């Protein structure tokens, strides 16, 4: 009975999650365009990938995206959550306002931001008021990825804020009260009580952030029209995988990048999981 009840779920999960991961590993040893006959090529797909400048550009873009977005969104989310965790008027409204972007469609948000980042758009209009000439954000290789970073932080901070709020509510109030009685100021309580006790939540937010940013696709695809431009400045690893299938017809290269991304994601997850796995004592 137990097997029968879990079978449909397990089949679908295996077919679309773990199975594909194994299949990608298999495909990475073949040369194939989806239309011709598969040909075994050993490790040469990996050889090609590791010597391809485009791959390293994608690695660089993805890594810098993660390195900027994850710490920023974690800090912003923590900051908002701590402020919101107090007795404030309009708390519910504020929480809604911060959280809403996280449940909106990435496609719609990307389109709205393309309009805001337009050379003659809202952002440059605002900068113009301050006397700063704004760049053509999305057409400039130096600014395009940074523009996507800002958008991403704007979208996901509210989501992680909710995670932090749940973590904050798990900290017993008596600890704060005791510290307050002992004369600890609010900054002292924040750095000596809140931050250490929130460590599991923070790790969790960081790991989810790393996984999420390493898979960034929608925004880069939509904003660059699928090209990763200008000058490959928005080519991420997942966008590169997409291009290897649909633009270059090189399934093997795409599979090799999939394996690399997969192994790296797993390594980060398991690594931090092990770290996170330690229980925390109040």
């Amino acid at each position, binding site marked *: 009975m137990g097997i029968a009840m879990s079978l449909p779920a397990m089949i679908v999960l295996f077919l*679309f999650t*773990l199975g594909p991961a194994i299949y990608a590993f298999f495909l990475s040893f073949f040369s194939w365009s989806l239309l011709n006959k598969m040909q075994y090529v050993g490790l040469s797909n990996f050889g090609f990938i590791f010597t391809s400048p485009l791959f390293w550009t994608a690695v660089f873009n993805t890594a810098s995206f993660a390195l900027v977005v994850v710490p920023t969104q974690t800090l912003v989310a923590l900051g908002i959550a701590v402020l919101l965790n107090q007795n404030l008027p309009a708390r519910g409204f504020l929480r809604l306002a911060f959280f809403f972007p996280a449940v*909106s469609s990435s*496609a*719609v948000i990307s389109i709205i931001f393309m*309009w805001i980042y337009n050379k003659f758009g809202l952002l440059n209009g605002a900068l113009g008021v301050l006397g700063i000439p704004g760049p053509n954000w999305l057409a400039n290789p130096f600014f395009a990825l940074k523009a996507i970073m800002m958008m991403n932080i704007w979208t996901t901070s509210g989501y992680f804020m909710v995670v932090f709020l749940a973590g904050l509510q798990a900290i017993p109030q008596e600890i704060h009260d005791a510290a307050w009685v002992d004369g600890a100021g609010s900054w002292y309580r924040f750095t000596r009580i809140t931050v250490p006790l929130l460590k599991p939540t923070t790790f969790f937010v960081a790991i989810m952030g790393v996984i999420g940013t390493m*898979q960034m696709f929608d925004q880069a695809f939509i904003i660059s029209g699928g090209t990763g431009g200008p000058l490959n400045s928005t080519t991420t690893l997942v966008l590169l995988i997409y291009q*290897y299938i649909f633009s270059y017809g090189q399934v093997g290269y795409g599979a090799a990048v999939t394996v690399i991304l997969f192994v790296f*994601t797993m390594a980060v997850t398991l690594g931090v999981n092990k770290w996170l796995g330690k229980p925390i004592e109040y």
Partner: protein
Amino acid sequence: MLYLLVLFCGALVMFIPFAWSLSTSLKPLSQSLAYPPVWIPRVFDWSNYVKIWQIVPLARWFLNSGIAATGVTLCNLVFDSMAGYALARLQFRGKQFLFIGVLAMLMVPFQAVMLPVYILLRYLGLLDNYFGLIIPLAVQAVGVFLMRQAFLNLPADLESAARIDGAGSFRTFWQLSVPLVAPSLLTLGLISFMLSWNNFLLPLLVANREHLWTVPLGIVMFQQEYFVNWPYLMAAAVMTTIPVAVIFLIFQKWFVRGIATTGMN
């Protein structure tokens, strides 16, 4: 007081892009391109909201999004809760192994396996039909995990009593336990619906033909392949956001609960 000021400024930043899309959607094309930007349109021009339905098959895209999201939601409610129940309450060989499998699959993001999934969908003949938009999302590891937690939290005595009265395990599950975890089902339903409704990558892989596009894919294709008419696009953006906003406002408590219990989207 200072805190409140900071928070309200932050909330304003969150609100501006949506407000700007609303503002643009109410302007004629010529006025939308005014620089420096103007917030309040001189005349409120509602015609963009009418014309967009005629220029692109927006109604069809809404229908497609609705069908896909409904299918995904129903599948997740049924399959995730069945598996969650089996993992929480039933004894069978390989249970521990399956549970570890579910945990491992929690960590596999869809984007990462896009290439093999696409090839698989092609093999299975799932490209260019609704099943392709539903089946890959029909079960979520997070959902199985969430439902397992929900069933674990029910008192075990209750079910033993039902069993003694002669109810089989499926009947116990269906008639006794499922109604008791209704709150978790609501959370799961919301998570699944949003996952499908907002999804961009899966329709991009599956739906090559325009009549199968969903709203997010349709709007992006409209923007990239036709022409850049921002008021039209913003009108479409506003109309796509409104149903999400309504659902969100009604069920906000459950969204928050979903994140608090699973920590994941």
